[in-house]
């Protein structure tokens, strides 16, 4: 049974098309929604979470229409992309209050929030104000509010954005555990490597249309043909560059304020190496590892031409 089905789904903002005649059926398990910025990914996420009304076509989530059907959110958890919070609240207060909106009594909501906060490894910081959280902690508390009410379907919009390599690895592991526990997950990203670490089942979206769906392997092969750019934010950029230059597949390294940008032809090995470096702590902290859209754009250009 599909957890999400759209039929001829379109969305226009005035004269501008955000999504164009999308028909897709997403099965239970983990599915990755992959597309560069401006591809229609964000519009698709807003339509399937009932934030926008389709201009044409329909969306069925867990067998029911989502627009104007708030009861369905009892079964759905959503982690939005935007970095927005009630900054004056503590993480615990925020997750408890949002969980309470699902009809749980005060104590059950507090217990559910504590459990979700523990799952994202934020228990120690739970009673600090969200305003004092790092980017990675903010991402994790967003995940906590999405899972606290134990949804059947979890929709995650760029959930790994801003996390350090170690936390990325743990979060990917956690998402897989949730899926093993019976929760279906739809996760969006503009980084193929991230999606690939969670699932082989992907939906590729570009220019408001579904370009491809299904197994990721043939897409994966393409990635090696296009050098993959990775930006690393660290105070020890030179030491890390020296270490990475010894790796196979490094095409170029350049320094930028606060870090370095590396081009690699072997992203899998590269990400694993960066994570190991972060875990060893030999070169100080690695605050953030990000991958600009250019990687995916190159693959999409290839796909569209093909």
């Amino acid at each position: 049974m599909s957890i999400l089905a759209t039929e001829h789904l379109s969305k226009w903002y005035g004269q501008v098309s955000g999504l164009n005649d999308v028909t897709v059926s997403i099965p239970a398990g983990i599915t990755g929604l992959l597309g560069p910025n401006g591809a229609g990914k964000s519009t698709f996420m807003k339509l399937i979470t009932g934030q926008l009304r389709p201009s044409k076509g329909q969306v069925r989530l867990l067998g029911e229409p989502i627009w104007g059907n708030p009861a369905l959110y009892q079964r759905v958890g959503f982690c939005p992309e935007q970095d927005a919070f009630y900054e004056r609240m503590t993480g615990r207060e925020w997750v408890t209050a949002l969980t309470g909106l699902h009809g749980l009594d005060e104590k059950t909501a507090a217990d559910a929030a504590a459990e979700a906060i523990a799952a994202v490894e934020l228990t120690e910081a739970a009673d600090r104000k969200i305003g004092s959280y790092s980017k990675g902690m903010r991402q994790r508390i967003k995940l906590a509010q999405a899972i606290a009410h134990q949804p059947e379907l979890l929709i995650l919009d760029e959930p790994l954005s801003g996390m350090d390599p170690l936390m990325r690895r743990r979060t990917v592991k956690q998402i897989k555990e949730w899926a093993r526990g019976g929760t279906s997950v739809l996760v969006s990203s503009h980084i193929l490597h991230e999606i690939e670490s969670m699932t082989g089942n992907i939906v590729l979206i570009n220019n408001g249309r579904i370009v491809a769906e299904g197994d990721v392997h043939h897409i994966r092969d393409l990635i090696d043909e296009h050098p993959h750019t990775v930006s690393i934010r660290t105070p020890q950029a030179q030491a890390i560059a020296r270490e990475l230059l010894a790796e196979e597949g490094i095409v170029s390294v350049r320094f930028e304020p606060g870090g370095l940008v590396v081009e690699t032809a072997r992203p899998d090995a590269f990400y694993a190496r960066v994570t190991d470096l972060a875990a060893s702590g030999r070169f100080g902290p690695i605050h953030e590892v990000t991958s600009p859209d250019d990687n995916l754009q190159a693959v999409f250009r290839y796909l569209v031409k093909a």
Partner: protein
Amino acid sequence: MSARRPLPTPPTFATGAVRVFSLSLGEMLWSRRTVFLLLVTGAPVFLALVARIVQGTGVVPLRVNGAAVDGGSIFGMMIWLFFLRFIVPVLGVFYGTSLIADEIEDRTITYLFTRPIRRGAVLVGKYLAYVVCTTLVVLPSVVLVYFLVVPIGQVAQTFTAFAADLGLLALGLAAYGALFALVGAALKRPLVSGLVFVFGWEQIALVVPGYLKRFTIAHYVQGLVPHAMPSEGIAAVLQSVLRENPPALVCILALAAIVGVSLFLGVRAVESREYVLDQ
């Protein structure tokens, strides 16, 4: 995630509104807007303090046709001029129009609109938080003004009117807030529309003879002011132009109707409208 809990029943409209109220009240009380609210409500307290100090020197601060105006009348004029004609409508505009707009601007609306509660309950919950928040700040300011301006000896004879003042201010805050909650839910630039209503439409409609004043909130709020105003001089002329008192019961029913209809339409607007967040 541990073993699944049985799915709770989704909250009713009322329960959802109460939960949103609890979530929003603290946020509202500690917001930057409340600092503005404290400054606005602090101004009459400051003036009352100055009046009290001047009175202490033996100089009579206010005379009408050479006759001294007593503390009760000064308090009545302050309620009318500062609170009813300025503070209450301004707070209604700034808070009411922002109930949904702030959540959109801060991009936090997503967390509320992806819960198993009706969007209308979000609006009503936030509206209730507004009423409590503004009442908690405005009424203590009025109490301070009262005890600064009215001599202790006059408290007994003016206390009933004072209690009525507190009630009508709360009613005014509720009515203006509900109207502007509707404006905020339905229009894209609600603040401008709200300011035009308060400082344009209401000012004009109140002085134009005829029935136009019935389409203002100020007409019904002022109809409930219990104070006898000075009978001669500029204040009396102003009063005669600006005040035409409908019966109190009509005023209360009209204000209740404004609250009810505005919230009903606001709920409908918020449930049918799409809110597109900036990326």
